[in-house]
């Protein structure tokens, strides 16, 4: 069974204890917020996720979306759930109060996103896409466009999309062919065909605001000739109501492995009226400003699935009676012991848990940096936060989504054959998790971004935003009585990461293929060390608070035990990556294309 209770205690740990929410509250925009308010928001989000979104997850997957004559219908119950979600104001959570938003920090937003991803990934994409479009428009749209469109997107009456991909180009957007022809009134006529447009057409909102990458007639070739346009499904009237139908139609929806309740659309634009967003030919840059937040959100999808997989697997491991404990019957009163008595089942469950909690901690750190980028008044602090998010974005996106799929598979393993059949709902996690490794830039592309752009950025300054705090922590805590052994394990992993980084810097500078050959393993190594750092810090807090914890003692003891599991059973995987990274490109480049 898909079961889910939002891990509120751990979320509060990440928000207040590990990343000290007061730091955000002390900055401009935080005056009206308090830790108690954040907790109330998380509690209510948990209720909606558990009671409204979760019950539609399996049914939405089973039914999928319906397409007929350009019209897309979402599965039964989605419209009512979206109305409830929107009426309760959840689409406006992290948006600017100037446009009707609630102005809550990103770190709270990402925790709420985790809940919707865990309970109904497909549903969460609809408001998620709108939020991405909101960010791009907020940062680059003209005042007039923002005034016309943002309030409706913030309150969720209208939804948003990102129209990048075309049939012949996804990663390499320089090849795109959609055209935008300027009109005397300052608008543009947009024509072309886009594919893989999530939420491109659906019945949840009265209007859909497409952000479309296209080329102007005199634009330079390649990525330097791409501009961003806003193309609504219905042209708003002067009163702001949806007016005449614009020239954009959905010609088909994709039949997919997972997230079947999310409408993935093919869109055709024919002389559709649109408006330029940002400067001409700077469309990609406009898109990329919201990419850090969006890629973190995709990472959160992996985290949400990991948590959902964990809870479902634990429930089954406690109730499934098979065989006896290797140490003799643990429950002689029952026909057999529950399978959770077995070390291998526990290894599986703890692996998922250690990944999920580690990812939650790391996501909190990066989300806090997103908040600091927006809210800090000190330019040096803003720059530090920008460097850090830029560095960590590919790591979080690729690592978390790899983990989402791996842990969904591990969770299924606990079910044995019962996990493979539909009835228990856990095979859906495997199918739903898989897409997150692909969209918003495949994980291979993320790895290249990390080694090719982020490592060398600002002569290594970005990298130091991560390396320095880790090194300082290890130096300060390596002989700590409570967590010393955990810190020493982290130090070993960090040592491997430093060697790998030096290797890539040296070899990659001479030969870019060398960096490319090491990229995926390097990102994994980086990610495992980052999770290790989060676990060591979590253990430090847990050890300090345990003696006076009273009712929370169980929580902190479990934290410490899971930290130990991570350091002993998961982090060593990182050490093995170093020789692979150092082996270079020779083996994989040796084959002639014809030999494949």
């Amino acid at each position: 069974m898909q079961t889910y209770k939002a891990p509120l205690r751990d979320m509060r740990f990440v928000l207040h204890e590990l990343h000290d929410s007061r730091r955000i509250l002390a900055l401009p925009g935080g005056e009206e917020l308090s830790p108690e308010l954040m907790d109330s928001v998380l509690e209510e989000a948990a209720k909606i996720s558990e009671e409204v979104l979760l019950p539609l997850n399996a049914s939405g997957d089973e039914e999928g979306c319906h397409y007929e004559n350009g019209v897309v219908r979402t599965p039964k119950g989605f419209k009512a759930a979206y109305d409830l979600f929107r009426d309760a104001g959840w689409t406006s959570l992290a948006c600017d109060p100037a446009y009707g938003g609630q102005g809550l920090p990103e770190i709270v937003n990402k925790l709420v996103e985790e809940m919707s991803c865990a309970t109904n990934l497909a549903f969460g994409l609809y408001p998620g896409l709108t939020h991405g479009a909101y960010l791009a428009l907020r940062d680059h749209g003209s005042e007039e466009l923002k005034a016309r469109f943002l309030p409706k997107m913030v309150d969720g009456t209208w939804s948003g999309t990102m129209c990048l991909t075309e049939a012949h180009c996804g990663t390499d957007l320089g090849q795109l062919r959609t055209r935008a022809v300027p009109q005397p009134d300052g608008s543009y006529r947009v024509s072309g065909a886009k594919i893989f447009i999530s939420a491109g057409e659906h019945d949840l909102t009265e209007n859909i605001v497409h952000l479309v990458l296209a080329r102007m007639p005199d634009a330079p070739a390649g990525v330097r000739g791409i501009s961003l346009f806003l193309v609504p499904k219905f042209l708003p009237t002067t009163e702001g109501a949806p007016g005449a139908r614009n020239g954009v139609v959905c010609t088909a929806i994709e039949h997919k492995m997972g997230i079947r309740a999310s409408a993935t659309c093919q869109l055709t634009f024919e002389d559709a009226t649109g408006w330029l967003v940002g400067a001409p030919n700077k469309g990609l840059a406009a898109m990329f400003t919201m990419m850090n937040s969006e890629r973190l959100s995709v990472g959160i999808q992996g985290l949400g699935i990991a948590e959902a997989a964990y809870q479902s697997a634990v429930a089954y491991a406690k109730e499934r009676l098979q065989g006896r404990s290797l140490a003799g019957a643990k429950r002689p009163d029952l026909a057999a012991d529950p399978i959770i008595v077995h070390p291998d089942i526990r290894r599986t469950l703890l692996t998922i848990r250690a990944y999920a909690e580690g990812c939650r901690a790391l996501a909190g750190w990066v989300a806090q940096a997103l908040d600091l980028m927006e809210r800090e008044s000190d330019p040096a602090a803003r720059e530090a936060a920008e460097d850090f998010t830029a560095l960590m974005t590919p790591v979080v996106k690729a690592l978390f989504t790899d983990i989402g799929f791996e842990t969904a598979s591990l969770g299924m393993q606990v079910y044995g054959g019962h996990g493979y059949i539909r009835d228990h709902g856990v095979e859906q996690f495997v199918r739903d998790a898989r897409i997150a490794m692909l969209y918003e830039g495949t994980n291979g592309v993320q790895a290249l971004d990390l080694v090719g752009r982020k490592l060398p950025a600002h002569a290594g300054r970005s990298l130091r935003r991560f390396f320095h705090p880790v090194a300082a922590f290890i130096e300060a805590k390596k002989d700590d009585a409570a967590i010393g052994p955990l810190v020493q394990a982290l130090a070993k992993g960090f040592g491997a990461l430093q060697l790998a980084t030096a290797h890539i810097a040296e070899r990659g500078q001479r030969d870019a293929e060398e960096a490319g050959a090491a990229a995926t393993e390097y990102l994994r190594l980086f990610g495992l060390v980052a999770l290790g750092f989060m676990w060591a810090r979590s253990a430090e807090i847990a050890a300090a608070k345990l003696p006076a914890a009273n009712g929370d003692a169980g929580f902190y003891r479990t934290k410490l035990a899971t930290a130990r599991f991570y350091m002993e059973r998961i982090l060593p995987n990182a050490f093995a990556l170093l020789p692979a990274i150092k082996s270079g490109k020779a083996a994989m480049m040796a084959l002639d294309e014809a030999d494949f």
Partner: protein
Amino acid sequence: MKLLVPVKRVVDYNVKVRVRADGSGVETAGVKMSMNPFDEIAVEEAVRLKEKGVASEVVAVSLGVAACGETIRTALAMGADRGILVETDAELQPLAVAKLLRAIAEREKPGLIILGKQAIDDDMNATGQMLAALLGWPQGTFASKVEIAGETIAVTREIDGGLETVSLSLPAIVTTDLRLNEPRYASLPNIMKARKKPIETLTPAALGVDPAPRLALVTVVEPAKRQAGKKVGSVAELVAKLKTEAKVI
């Protein structure tokens, strides 16, 4: 008309409660606490009456430790206008609660008090009735429907044989049953606004009430574990066991 809605902070209904090792009660340290679900129904009904224009103000009251303020915030997020917290670390039994609520009712002069029929922690089902007696107001308990017309309220009550409707003159006490309504999800803007709504903090002494327990709790124990069943081979064996072992026939 002003409505008064008492709300109690209890162990969340999802939590599997455990008895403290010393038998002094159930474990509440580190346990998720929430508003008593029957009280949520009471808040919902009060807010609906306000939305219909029948009531002008909804005041949520909670009694107990400082954390009860969070329970009041939940009511404020659902739509109550302001809160009153009577703060005390003392153990509060229904009679003390009813006396404190009477003192508040005398100050606030509400036209109607709506409260849960019972709290899911001790299932006493006593406070509403005691409060009605202390105030000398009519009571409509276990309500599944309420309709206010002028100075009277028609309360449909869930009773053993079905439904019974009583007509009470206001001011009155109504206690809620499960089917009265389905409480709403608090909206995000209302959660934010709830932080700005006023909560007045009082003490039992300020209200002139001595909350000391009148009942002594002897011990709290877990229910006995259910024994495994036995298979019988024949009807005769079953009858014999019912006679000699179960001693029910």
